[in-house]
């Protein structure tokens, strides 16, 4: 995975894992790789990998089964909420960046609708 090296790596890995959850690449209750495996998988520092899991656990997205490893939460609602949050974040960013270009939200939405109809 290519990282933006000006931003904390752990946040980028967290986002990548959340995306895997939201897109269904990973499912509720799935076992996650160990911290060490995660480090190897993403080619990141092992301490960073450990931090990824501790942050995810704090958010309730993962949990640890003692001696067995880290698992994705079984709370499907949480994953749905995650999807909503991520979508909301994207929309907000879209609108904000459009605003920076001097395009009001209504126009931005119209433009998006037009783009969609052209594609269809």
């Amino acid at each position: 995975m290519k990282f933006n090296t000006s931003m904390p790596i752990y946040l980028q890995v967290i986002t990548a894992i959340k995306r895997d959850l939201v897109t269904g690449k990973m499912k509720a209750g799935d076992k996650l790789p160990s911290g060490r495996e995660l480090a190897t998988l993403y080619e990141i520092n092992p301490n960073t990998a450990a931090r990824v899991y501790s942050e995810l656990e704090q958010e309730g997205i993962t949990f640890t089964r003692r001696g067995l490893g880290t698992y994705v939460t079984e709370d499907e609602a949480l994953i749905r909420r995650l999807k909503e949050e991520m979508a909301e974040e994207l929309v907000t960013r879209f609108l904000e960046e459009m605003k920076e270009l001097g395009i009001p939200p209504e126009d931005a939405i119209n433009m998006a609708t037009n783009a969609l109809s052209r594609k269809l």
Partner: protein
Amino acid sequence: MLESRNITKKFGSKIAVDQVTLKIEPGYIYAMLGPNGSGKTTWMKMAAGLVKPTSGEMFFDGEPLSVESRRHIAYMSTEPYFYAWMTVGDVGRYYKDFFEDFSPARFSDLLRRMELTEDLKTKSLSSGMMAKLKIAVTMARDARVIMLDEPLNGIDLLAREDITRSITEAAGEDKAILVSSHLVDELETISDYAIFIKNGHLIEVDNIEESRAEAGKSIVDRYREIYGHGGQEW
């Protein structure tokens, strides 16, 4: 764990390392950065006990560096250093003979991944293969301090991933890993700390994730600020 106090090394009138006080702690991967000739190699060689400081001292576990500390410190130099008569297998047997922490199993595993075989003569290895052999034999030691001097030099893009992976695999709570490079971005994602060295001076030690979070800076950004260029040339 490994510490230099006011260490200085002069070669004739040239000062290679100037009053460097630096502490390496277990559980972390350190990237030692700086252009060629900035003093990284000399510091590492002093830590390995190969080069004697002009003044100042090196400590391991709080004790002055000694023959005993070599049991726990693995060092890989930039230059090839094996005896001319050796095959790849001989190199492994030599390490087995002298280092209690050397694992022949891990060595053969690393050799396989690096696509080297035991019967190859070290004399006939290409520079890239030699670089891989040096890494394999060093990383096959379960040493408490691992120092790799320019491990990515002469290594093709694909094999670089094997090497960075072997570094993250070797990392552990009780181990310190110190990797030098002038290819700054290669170590960006795998290191905890960046040690910047310039003209023999220690400039600073950065916690990389922190400086990303607080200043939004990558090590490459910091490198440019310190040296005035991106580190790809020197």
